[in-house]
């Protein structure tokens, strides 16, 4: 039982989520979102759902981030809020 690790990671999740929505630089926000996804994937794997964790790592931290960043390349990088 590694619930301390669990809780630490869950805490990080909340921190990442708040950071992702409040940071003004969108690229940073996206990278933080990517980190959020990765942590989420680890949490899930730790909860014995390997398939979902695997998928989240590939999708959330991979494809979604790529798509976000390419979108940023075609729009603008800063947010007003």
């Amino acid at each position: 039982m590694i619930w301390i690790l669990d809780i630490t990671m869950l805490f990080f999740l909340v921190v990442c989520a708040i950071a992702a929505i409040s940071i003004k630089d969108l690229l940073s926000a996206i990278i933080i979102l990517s980190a959020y996804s990765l942590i989420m994937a680890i949490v899930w794997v730790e909860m014995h759902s390997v398939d979902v964790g695997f998928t989240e790592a590939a999708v959330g931290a991979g494809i979604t981030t790529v798509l976000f960043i390419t979108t940023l390349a075609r729009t603008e990088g800063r947010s007003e809020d």
Partner: protein
Amino acid sequence: MSGIQESVIIRTVVRIIVPFIQLFALYVIMHGASGPGGGFQGGVIFGAAIILYAMIFGIGEGKKKMSDALDKILASTGLTIYAATGLICIVCGGMFLQYGAVPLIPDNPAEVSKYLIDLVEIGIGITVLAVMISLFFNVSPPESEPEEAEE
């Protein structure tokens, strides 16, 4: 991204690593039956390999590997494999997607379903990789790409 694209080291590394990623993706797809992984994850990884390639060598190069038409056809094909499997089950007298009904190996529906699950996973994989690549190609900026400017 131009800085990265000109770096020889990265280009070489990517050129070497992409086939391995693809291989890994195929493994993930096929391994889905007995361990974590499956068509979707494998498809995403396979797609990511080509996306990585396209990011480094430019979308034009990427499109040479995976043209739009091929992309569309692959996307359709993957799904058609899936749906056709379901329809074959119907033709063989079962319900839609009732793998056991297909008389591939007599008296062992579990084995049949194992193979058909693999087939279906491959179908998913094909669609997912095609769509992932198509998503990337469409979302990424067109101006860096000379071919598209001619259109």
